[in-house]
């Protein structure tokens, strides 16, 4: 699938303040570097289990996070490092969780697929495909009920559009006019299989929008300015009582589905085309073209790298969690007792 001409809105970079554009760049760089570092740590056997990298999908996370209010809610998938970082969780706490250390966001009790940072509005990363869409709707209902003007954003892959929870959540959100945004990161593959091979419509999310009375939106998910603008519009609509939005962001993951997947099923030409549309490279070039100094961008990059190096060393030095912690926090009283 090539980027469609129907993708909209056209980027409105000139309307976005420079400070915001620099933030969009910094967030993307931070995600890119941190995800690469996660992969390196994996090869060093310091990250166990699995991980699902969002390399190539940085613009979606950056665009939304920059547009959201600090008290808005994010609901992510097992491919959720990028959103967790973009909302403000530290690289140390994310890498620490991946490495199963005491400094991790959940002190090793959740792992890569369940990153949660309530302090940053990240209300969990959900590893059962589609499960978090109804949960986001519930959080949106709660915000509506409490009158807080908060918005819930659920991020999910193209594969989630074929599971029942997607449809139940969209219907409920539309019926109850909930302040929730459903953001599909269409990276063209559901795990190892092209989404087009298993989906009845061309655009797996947007082509279902009409079923729930929602506007059809397909945007270039590799353009942080476009994502930011679309997110901002949908957030404004949700906050003002206009109900839910469904946004399909066209993007591409640079690596395989998970660390076990070399992604050999992808045509070489397709990969090359999308690597040319690398969101971080494109955004850097745009900032330069709009008059931002090379030195400024280089400074951001080197500062992020220095911070990442410090975070990596601190995570490596962090102790592993106490074994007693495996028995805590089943219940609100902090314990695990099922009997007296």
């Amino acid at each position: 699938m090539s980027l469609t001409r129907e993708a909209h809105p056209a980027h409105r970079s000139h309307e976005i303040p420079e400070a915001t554009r620099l933030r969009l760049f910094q967030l993307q760089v931070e995600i890119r570097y941190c995800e690469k570092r996660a992969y390196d740590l994996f090869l060093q056997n310091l990250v166990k289990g699995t991980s699902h990298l969002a390399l190539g999908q940085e613009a979606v996370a950056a665009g939304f996070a920059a547009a959201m209010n600090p008290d808005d809610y994010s609901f992510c998938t097992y491919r959720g490092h990028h959103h967790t970082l973009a909302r403000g969780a530290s690289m140390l706490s994310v890498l620490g969780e991946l490495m199963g250390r005491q400094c991790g966001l959940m002190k090793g009790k959740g792992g890569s697929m369940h990153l949660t940072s309530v302090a940053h509005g990240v209300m969990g990363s959900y590893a059962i495909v589609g499960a978090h869409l109804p949960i986001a709707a519930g959080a949106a209902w709660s915000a509506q009920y409490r009158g807080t003007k908060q918005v819930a954003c659920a991020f999910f892959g193209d594969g989630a559009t074929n599971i029942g929870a997607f449809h139940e959540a969209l219907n409920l959100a539309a019926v109850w006019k909930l302040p929730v945004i459903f953001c599909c990161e269409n990276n063209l593959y559901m795990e190892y299989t092209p989404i087009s091979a298993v989906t009845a419509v061309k655009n797996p999310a947007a082509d279902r929008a009409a079923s729930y009375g929602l506007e059809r939106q397909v945007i270039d998910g590799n353009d942080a300015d476009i994502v930011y603008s679309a997110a901002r519009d949908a957030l404004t609509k949700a906050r003002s009582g206009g109900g839910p939005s469904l946004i399909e962001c066209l993007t591409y993951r640079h690596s395989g589905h998970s660390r076990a997947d070399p992604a050999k099923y992808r045509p070489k030409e397709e990969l090359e085309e999308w690597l040319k549309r690398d969101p971080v490279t494109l955004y850097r070039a745009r900032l330069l073209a709009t008059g931002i100094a090379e030195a400024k961008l280089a400074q951001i990059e080197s500062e992020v790298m220095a911070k990442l190096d410090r975070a990596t060393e601190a995570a490596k030095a962090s102790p592993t969690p106490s074994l007693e912690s495996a028995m805590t926090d089943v219940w609100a009283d902090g314990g695990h007792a099922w009997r007296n």
Partner: protein
Amino acid sequence: MAQLSYRDAVAAAIAQEMRRDERVVLFGEDTAAAGGVFKTTVGLFEEFGPRRVKDTPISELAILGAAMGAAMTGLRPVAEIMFSDFLACCWDYVANEIAKTRYMSDGQISLPLVIRTANGAGSRFGAQHSQSVENWAMSVPGLKVVAPSSPADAKGLLAAAIRDPDPVVFFEHKSLLANKAEVPEGEHVEPLGKAKVLREGGDITVIALAAMVPRALKAAETLAADHGISATVIDVRSLVPLDAKTLLAESARTGRVFTVEENPRLCGWGAEIASVIQEEIFDALKGPIVRITTPHVPLPAADQLEDAVVPSVARIVAEVRRTLDSRRAA
């Protein structure tokens, strides 16, 4: 004390909690305007209005997902899954999401919510609308599991479940809904995790739950009147947290223990309780712990067949007598 039916006691508990706590909301299929297909929520829509009492589409995933999202952001939702059999439709939320999120988030997320659901046989609805699935919920770490047998407990335990900071699966038994009994007026809350000794006897200890409790009590009367066997009857009330102390003490007192379970045989709740008892008070036992359960079959629809498989008063009496006779003969 007022006479209330079990179904009215359910509504009374929800009303009591909604009046005292603005965060409590109620929703499910036909729950609001219709008052529930089992009429357990009659009057709540009228009293609390469409903002707090809502009808949902037939979307079990959305119902429990929404309950979870609302609970983690400050509400205290009471979500209804019409038949407990339908928990299978949304088991991901019950077992993977709601049960595990506090733990996985290292305590960052709290889920004070109640899943109310109509459980059990007696209505001749067949294999997909009659099951007793309390043992499904009991098997998942992170869920509290409650099943009242009386109107007073329906009110008191449901009120406690709504106030509880953890997720509670609350099983309302369909065949008990019409039962009327005294229910304390005014605020009534029964703590979770306490079994109730309903009858004291010296020969045997019968441990029962929900609709099996009145049957066990009737069986105890017959055993006393016709066979000279004096039975203690305990209502477990809450499978998680489990009042093991009371069960162990009452089992040790007679040394002869029977469980009466509506769930099918394998991995029924009585198996776990029997395991606890034999591990901890083996020397006090005078014979094997006997489980009286629905056999390991799906539930049939025809009334004669359903009655034949679910433990009945006659079967409890017969099993107790057979067990005691065979021990005497040996």
